[in-house]
């Protein structure tokens, strides 16, 4: 699989070729060419900002249809904690979990349950690895992708523990196989996701070789169906939940960090804020921080682009819901089985995430300097309006595109105008 796979894609028919997405993309991965937006995959980090901004709904995430449930003999639903923030007055997550079973899943396994195990392991890891402080969270796939293309110096700070969803998937598969005796391909581990980034993380994982998730559904697709089943479920609630405050809290920005039970952390949300934090971290401007939690989406995963509720409203709902939950359920008897399962699974990353210098202009330093000075020459010729008419987000980006050989000088309408004037002047002289 392509290591720059992205879930975010363009619907050519709907795209009007406007400049909204090129302006909004935090890694400048989008250009308008021949009247249509195109995404340079190796620059894209799947944050979903273009999906949020596109007024024509031409940007979409690829994920699986609900019917994927029929492809397996036995299915386990893995609800993300952010799912719980979508409902009004939900005071018992078991209603959601029971409804998932009524909807057709054979079993459910809360991602927040695995999140509590990740919190426990992270606590130990952070304690043991002072040399890596501050340690940077890796649960948001967009953040890992951003760091691997833009912040090579920070790769060593990454928390090398599997994201809760991957750990949950591994445990869920193992349990399902034991319970049913079915072979692995007959079992479908299906994640209910807040975002396209998680789709890419399943298709092309970083840090681990293969994810145990078989299919990914969008919260916004599951939500309307689930509502109906929740009404039924209220009278037959099954006790399926395996998580408390810490696990469910992961759906909100700050949830993962507070699970570490330390005050020396920073939690940032929203991709632009995150980039500013990473810039400062790279310049060693933080001291005495042990942990940094970063979420590409505003308010955290509740702000994922595949959710339905306003992120800040969802955040409050989760906060209210967890108020009277036990801190964690890691040590309750019903999780014993789970603890055992997790002992047989390696929760750590098995490979390092490597720097991908996709923004590099040349193959070596000499060429890089040469090309950069060419970029500077072009910038001097452009009007500096960052108008976007050329299809690039800024004059600087157009200059870089020209030097990379993917755009032309006359893509700048001011240059084109000058050229046309010159030709028409010459023409009139002939007359």
């Amino acid at each position, binding site marked *: 699989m392509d290591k720059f796979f992205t879930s975010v894609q363009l619907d050519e028919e709907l795209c009007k070729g406007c400049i909204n997405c090129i302006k909004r993309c935090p890694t400048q991965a989008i250009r308008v060419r021949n009247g249509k937006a195109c995404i340079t995959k190796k620059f894209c980090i799947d944050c979903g900002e273009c999906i949020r901004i596109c007024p024509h709904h031409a940007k979409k995430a690829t994920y699986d249809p609900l019917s994927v449930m029929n492809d397996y003999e036995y299915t386990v639903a893995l609800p993300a904690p952010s799912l719980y923030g979508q409902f009004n007055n939900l005071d018992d997550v078991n209603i959601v979990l029971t409804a998932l079973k009524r909807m057709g899943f054979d079993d459910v396994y809360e991602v927040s349950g695995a999140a509590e195990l990740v919190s426990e392991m992270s606590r130990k890891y952070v304690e043991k690895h002072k040399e890596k402080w501050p340690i940077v969270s890796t649960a948001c796939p967009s953040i890992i992708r951003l760091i691997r293309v833009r912040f090579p110096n920070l790769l060593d700070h990454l928390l090398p523990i599997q994201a809760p969803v991957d750990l949950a998937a591994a445990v869920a598969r193992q349990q399902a196989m034991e319970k049913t005796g079915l072979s692995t391909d007959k079992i479908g581990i299906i994640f209910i996701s807040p975002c396209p980034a998680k789709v890419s993380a399943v298709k092309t994982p970083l840090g681990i070789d293969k994810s145990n998730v078989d299919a990914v559904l969008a919260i916004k697709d599951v939500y309307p169906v689930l509502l109906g089943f929740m009404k039924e479920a209220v009278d037959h609630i099954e006790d399926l939940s395996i998580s408390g405050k810490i696990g469910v809290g992961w759906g909100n920005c700050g949830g993962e960090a507070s699970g570490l039970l330390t005050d020396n952390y920073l939690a940032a949300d929203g991709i632009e804020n995150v980039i500013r934090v990473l810039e400062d971290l790279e310049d060693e401007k933080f001291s005495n921080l042990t942990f940094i939690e970063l979420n590409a989406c505003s308010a955290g995963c509740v702000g994922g682009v595949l959710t339905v509720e306003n992120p800040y409203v969802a955040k409050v709902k989760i906060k209210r819901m967890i108020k009277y939950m036990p801190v964690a359920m890691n040590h309750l008897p019903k999780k014993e089985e789970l603890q055992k399962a997790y002992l047989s699974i390696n929760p750590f990353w098995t490979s390092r995430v490597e720097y991908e210098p996709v923004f590099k*202009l040349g193959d070596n*330093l000499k060429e890089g300097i*040469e090309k*950069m000075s060419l970029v500077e020459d072009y910038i001097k010729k452009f009007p500096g309006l960052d108008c976007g008419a050329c299809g690039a987000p800024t004059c600087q980006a157009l200059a870089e595109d020209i030097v990379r050989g993917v755009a*032309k000088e006359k893509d700048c309408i001011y240059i084109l105008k000058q050229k046309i004037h010159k030709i028409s002047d010459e023409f009139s002289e002939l007359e």
Partner: protein
Amino acid sequence: MKMDFMGVHHIMTDRITLNYEVSAEDFTRAGEASSDVKKKLKQMGVEPSTITKVAIAMYEGEINMVIHAQGGQINVVISPDEVLMKLADRGPGINDIEKAMEAGFSTAPDNIRALGFGAGMGLPNMKKYSDEMQIETEIGKGTTVTMKVFLS
């Protein structure tokens, strides 16, 4: 040597010069120049840990121009061998360079400290992260800090 590159008459060069005006008017803009240099060094393919050295040394120098002098100019020359940074201000000058270089020494006023600056680690860090550093200063006239970070 001259070459024609898709319409730009470009003089082949093995170095690039970047100039920045550092304004002391708007404190929130301090650090913009070093952040731009950092971005460009990444695009040029400079080794990541070397970029950190340049970014930190230059950031501290830039901040000093803003909080201790009234801004000034930064001139950066990047060649395959080194990054040369010249930070020139027309501020009050430094009275006792040896003292100023001491870790923890600072004359920053309280309002600046309240923003988290003035820990007295700027000059020591510039010394630590650059490979060569030179300070020329004259009281009442200004200060020029020249730093080099080697690239190979």
